[in-house]
């Protein structure tokens, strides 16, 4: 039995997948703490879809996929800003139009050049088949992002909580926001490999949302979210060996399960706690 459970560790590709997934899951979870507090969750989704054509083109032209992804993410952000300024459309409509257009272009490129890259590996991720080159790229992206976040997490919190105060202590909110979105774009690119374009959104929202139900302190929120991100990603990658299923799907299902558990059982902000509190109010001193 134990031999069977240890079996995945005997394969180098499995070890690689587990370690890379955990790293990416952790950094994405870190970012999720900020994203979900600001109501910007859909921005992550839009970004993930918008980088697909960049990835497809990068594979086609044999350049590092991260460069292509980053470039097309930037292009999408510019397109969104432009449409937003020049029209009276609401933000969600603009985001919707731009990211679906980019996604469609990406799919088209892939389908016209079927040999260059498998559609499935972009949309659903393919961590088990990740190349050494990509491992290096993902590790560098995630490592640098993590270092920057660890250095500046308090400043980012201040900018997200109270821009005026950020200014009052001499920070530039615009610069901090640019830093955040660059990190988000970079981590989205990294996560594309593990869970694919469709499920990146879960990686940058669910861990933070789950942790939010469990604590009132931002420092702990980050720790809980990162722990959840690392654990679900590693376990998801590991379990996909036995279930022979898509790693991305497994990771996100695990994250959702933990979210549901927190939603019901969280000591202060869960449903059961809310019901207990309501009962305590309706029957005082019984």
């Amino acid at each position: 039995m134990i031999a069977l459970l240890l079996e995945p560790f005997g394969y180098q590709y499995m070890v690689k997948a587990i370690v890379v997934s955990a790293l990416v899951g952790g950094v994405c979870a870190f970012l999720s703490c900020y994203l979900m507090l600001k109501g910007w969750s859909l921005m992550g989704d839009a970004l993930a879809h918008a980088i697909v054509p960049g990835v497809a083109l990068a594979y086609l032209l044999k350049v590092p996929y991260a460069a292509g992804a980053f470039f097309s993410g930037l292009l999408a952000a510019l397109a969104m800003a432009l449409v937003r300024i020049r029209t009276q459309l609401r933000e969600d409509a603009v985001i919707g139009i731009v990211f679906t257009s980019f996604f469609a272009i990406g799919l088209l490129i892939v389908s016209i050049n079927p040999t260059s890259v498998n559609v499935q590996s972009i949309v659903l991720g393919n961590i088990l088949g990740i190349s050494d080159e990509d491992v290096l790229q993902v590790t560098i992206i995630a490592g640098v992002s993590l270092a920057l976040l660890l250095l500046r997490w308090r400043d980012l919190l201040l900018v997200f909580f109270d821009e005026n105060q950020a200014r009052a202590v001499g920070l530039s909110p615009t610069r901090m926001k640019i830093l955040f979105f660059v990190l988000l774009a970079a981590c989205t690119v990294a996560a594309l490999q593990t869970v694919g374009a469709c499920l990146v959104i879960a990686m940058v929202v669910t861990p933070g949302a789950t942790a939010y139900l469990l604590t009132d302190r931002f420092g702990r929120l980050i720790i809980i979210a990162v722990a959840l991100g690392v654990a679900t990603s590693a376990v998801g990658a590991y379990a996909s060996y036995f279930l022979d299923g898509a790693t991305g799907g497994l990771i996100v299902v695990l994250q959702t399960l933990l979210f549901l558990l927190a939603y019901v059982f969280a000591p202060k902000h869960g449903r059961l706690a809310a019901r207990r509190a309501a009962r305590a109010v309706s029957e005082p001193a019984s």
Partner: protein
Amino acid sequence: MTVPQHGRAMTPSIVVEGLTVRYNNGVTAVDEASFSLGAGTICALVGINGSGKSTLFKTLMGFLKPAKGSVSICGLPVRAALKAGLVAYVPQAEEVDWSFPVLVNDVVMMGRYGHMGLLRIAGKADREAAEQALARVGMLDFRRRQIGELSGGQRKRVFLARALAQGGQVILLDEPFTGVDVKTEDQIVDLMRELRAEGRLMLVSTHNLGSIPEFCDQVVIINKRILAAGPTETTFTQENLQLAFSGALRHFRLEGAALHDDADDRRVTVITDDERPLVLYGQRDRERLAAGERGAGPAASPGADRDREPAPDAGRGETR
């Protein structure tokens, strides 16, 4: 204007000269505004909604750039004054996301960021400053609470504590009395008087006209242009207020004949901009303003019994 000199390296001051601020859509929000304020001052900023009060605040906070003219704070350009941590800001309640997972102590610590290193790790001095500031506003016992669990008045006091912890010499307060009960209002006013005695400069944007003569020694009345600026006794007059609000104010006048049967032709004027009304009676307006008496008796003041505080036990769950 009297400018009491304190032995500080940075004497608090705000000097606005010929300031014009335009938004991207071409709307001019502040037009050729000039005024100056010195140390040991509480100045009220009065005007209708859209008169440029918040634009002026945003310019003082460096969020908007002047199209023309200049602003200097403590003798420095805005950006340098902000970098030096000289300007503290107490936001309106609506500007804050109360469901944010931060504790009272975390918020006050945010005032200390300018004093900390790049990693913003709190040292002993920072912890002491935060503790003192919380003690001063009477919120030390609440330091481990999530901010959404506080009442309206408590929330205000936490943000005041943050301004204190920061050590800002110039403090901008945006509607500090909105959604606050009378007791808290008095506490805030007392605290502001103490800060004035320490030589700090406070600029208060408020709709609470009735309380202005009580604690503000300077008034700036704005409607895109500066309509009047100067000491409260000479500036906060019926004529100037009518100029500022022209119809936007609730304005009641009871003529002498309606009040009594004799030949006395003095009349009662009640001016209110949503909050505590300003009550003026006959020729004594000026004296009353000058003496800094309470503007309104309890009967005339609907503000006296308002209490918009949420229940003290309202937790994060309810504010979301």
